[in-house]
């Protein structure tokens, strides 16, 4: 045996097919609602895999000796092992395996951009389409929800120290689950009336049903984590009070980036111009799609233009489409290749009849006498040199302005962190963009205060928030362990 094999013992393959046979099986498509049907409802677009599809898809895994998919995952889920368990029909075992690395599998199986993470490096993808890892993750997560097979993981003996987690989005939930398992008493403070953060107010029901989010939150609570809603840290309580009056020994800031950006163009404050945050919060959190059964209304016109090219823009335009307009239009100033949105969401939007206009930049929103919107004036763009991130920069074409007949405009051009905590916490350093500055371990400039996800990144993904939360929970554990040692009474 070569030395390589000594350091990496070959793991026995359990699927009885030759690699060539596995590679020849085509990727299985999930069960989905017909586009013509689903634009009339808010039910989930995809039903995912059933047992048959999942079993057949699992056969495609090459069971690599050195699984690159795990390295492609921001939280290093042991993908090979959980797929093997699916092949062996041990679905509960598979979900337990995932939960060792990621406490929110039913959520991440649905909203992770797998095509640019685990699936992008999958070796099956070299010759065929990659293994549908995300759909398999979702399958076992849903299996557990449907069968009620969840038993809370073992929780360490109490450490006698408590941690405050600010925000109940994916990052806050992850930190809480990790630290509760290590024996810390965790309380989450949530500003809104429901826990879940962006998973509740931002991501639509048709992509991430809210009962799924609640199921995952219940699993976090099952570890003993307390959730206090209607508490705004920075207003109702300050970070200083959490430490000095309430006895918390560490604080994690996972408040995300929820403050909408605007283009700063004329006409942007007309009544029928929304931020995507407002549109999505009205529909997702406040259930405006059930008005008047629910009291929160949403006023949308017949020709709706959504500005932006990310996942939030896709969510906003697809949500708009479900309010039965004549047209739901997406305007993006670069071309399709530069769109940051997930490929699956772009594909779904196209299937649903969303009209895409690329290289189109809004310059003014024109109103009528009564304050309604008459049209949006746009400028054609062309692609110039790449910017710092390597995306080609859009350059306006002189004299190319044209009018587009719309009556509702939604701005989905990005969010920045809410400034309340930064303004009310002395000693907390922030960047010029309003993000909280953290080191590689998630520590902020303030002792005992840690942060991660969009509050420090400005706008990333759910799985990045989960990964940051895992990193920060390790740092918090180390910090509190040292603190415990220092404060422990000297023996003898």
């Amino acid at each position, binding site marked *: 045996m070569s030395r390589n094999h000594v350091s990496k013992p070959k793991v026995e393959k359990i699927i009885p097919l030759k690699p060539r046979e596995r590679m020849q099986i085509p990727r299985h498509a999930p069960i989905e609602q017909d586009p013509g049907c689903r634009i009339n409802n808010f039910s989930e677009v995809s039903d995912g895999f059933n047992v048959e599809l999942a079993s057949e898809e699992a056969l495609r895994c090459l069971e690599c000796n050195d699984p690159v998919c795990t390295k492609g995952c921001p939280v290093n889920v042991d993908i090979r092992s959980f797929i093997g368990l699916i092949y062996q029909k041990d679905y509960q075992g598979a979900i337990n395996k995932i939960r060792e690395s990621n406490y929110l599998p039913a959520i991440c199986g649905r909203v992770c951009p797998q095509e640019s993470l685990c699936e992008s490096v999958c070796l099956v993808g070299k010759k065929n389409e990659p293994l549908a890892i995300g759909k398999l993750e979702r399958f076992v997560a849903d299996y557990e929800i449907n069968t009620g097979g969840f038993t809370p993981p073992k929780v360490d003996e109490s450490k006698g120290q408590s941690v405050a987690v600010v925000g109940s989005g994916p990052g806050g939930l992850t930190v809480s689950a990790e630290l509760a398992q290590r024996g810390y008493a965790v309380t989450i403070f949530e*500003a*809104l*009336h429901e826990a879940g953060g962006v998973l509740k*107010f931002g991501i639509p029901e048709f992509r991430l049903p809210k009962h799924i989010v609640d199921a995952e939150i219940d699993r976090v609570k099952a570890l003993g984590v307390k959730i206090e*809603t*209607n*508490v*705004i840290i920075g*207003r*109702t*309580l300050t970070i200083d009070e959490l430490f000095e009056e309430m006895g918390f020994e560490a604080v994690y800031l996972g408040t995300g980036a*929820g*403050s*909408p950006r*605007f283009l*700063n163009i004329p006409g942007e*404050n*007309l*009544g*029928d111009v*929304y*931020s995507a*945050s*407002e549109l999505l*919060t*009205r529909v997702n959190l*406040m*259930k405006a799609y059930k*008005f*008047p*059964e*629910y*009291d*929160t*209304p949403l*006023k949308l016109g017949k020709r709706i233009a959504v500005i932006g090219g990310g996942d939030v823009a896709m969510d906003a335009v697809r949500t708009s489409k479900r309010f039965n307009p004549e047209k739901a239009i997406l305007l993006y100033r670069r071309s399709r290749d530069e769109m940051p949105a997930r490929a699956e969401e772009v594909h779904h939007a196209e299937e649903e009849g969303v009209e895409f206009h690329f290289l189109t930049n809004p310059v003014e929103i024109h109103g009528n006498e009564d*304050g309604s919107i008459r049209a949006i004036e746009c400028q054609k763009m062309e692609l110039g040199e790449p910017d710092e991130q390597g995306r080609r920069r859009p350059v306006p074409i002189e004299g190319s302005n044209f009018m587009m007949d719309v009556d509702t405009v939604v701005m989905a051009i990005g969010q920045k962190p*809410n*400034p*309340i905590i930064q303004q009310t916490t002395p000693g907390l350093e922030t960047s010029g963009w309003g993000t909280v500055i953290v080191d590689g371990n998630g520590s902020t400039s303030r002792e005992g205060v840690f942060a991660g996800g969009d509050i420090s990144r400005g706008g990333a993904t759910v799985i990045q928030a989960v990964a940051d939360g895992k990193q920060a929970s390790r740092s918090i554990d180390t910090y509190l362990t040292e603190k415990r040692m220092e404060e422990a009474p000297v023996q003898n």
Partner: protein
Amino acid sequence: MYVIHRRTPLSSAITALEVEAPLIARKRKPGNFVIVRPTATGERIPLTIVESDSERGTITLIVQAIGKTTQLIHTMKEGDEFEDVVGPLGEPTPIENYGKVVCVGGGVGTAVVYPMAKALKAAGNKVISIIGAQNSDTVILEKEMSAVSDELFVTTDDGSRGIKGFVTQALGEIMERGDDIHSVYATGPLPMMRAVANQTRGSGIRTVVSLNPIMMDGTGMCGACRVTVGGKLKFACVDGPEFDAHEINFEELIARNKNYMNQEREAMETLKQEHQCQAG
């Protein structure tokens, strides 16, 4: 949680509610507001905190039944609970001893001006107040305003109480007296605040108004409450709710606030039908 301890009718459509909210009561300063949601299917709406009692752990809110949500709140009884109350929100009113100030409340806006007047009086200011209402039934907090003011004017549109006319008439009289007014604090319907701003603009008297635009989360997240102040985009929930009245683009704000009138009407119709069904 959020139990109504005391309900006091102030007029046929305006009610004061003392609500249990100890964490908010402890922190609240004049100028702060809360977001409330009366029921689990309800809307989130902002309401100014009129008074707070940190020992009793309560805050006092005043609500006028206009739309469905305010109508629901108006009919809540002692012992009933709000589904959610969150706050205190907004930047508090900066309070100093400026000298002489005028506090103007129009309609239910008097409930917003009262805590400012009280704090300004306590800080040593000479406070002249004006309460404006449509008629004698809708004059609220007269006794309370009187207690914190050196001088109080009441105006009604129909003359059924006090001076017949708008608050601007009383303000005009005060300004004509040549008093050295340092600041005017005004809150009421948008057209009233715009009229006050126009009235004081020429003399350059500092004029502060508290805005109550459409709002959802109250933490700077939805952008529904955006308003142009001095040519810059501001969110009333986190940058306000108080702004320099001379810098506000009132036309834009008035147009934005009308946006949901049809939906409001639909919601009210549903509420009426529900009541009829229950009655029948």
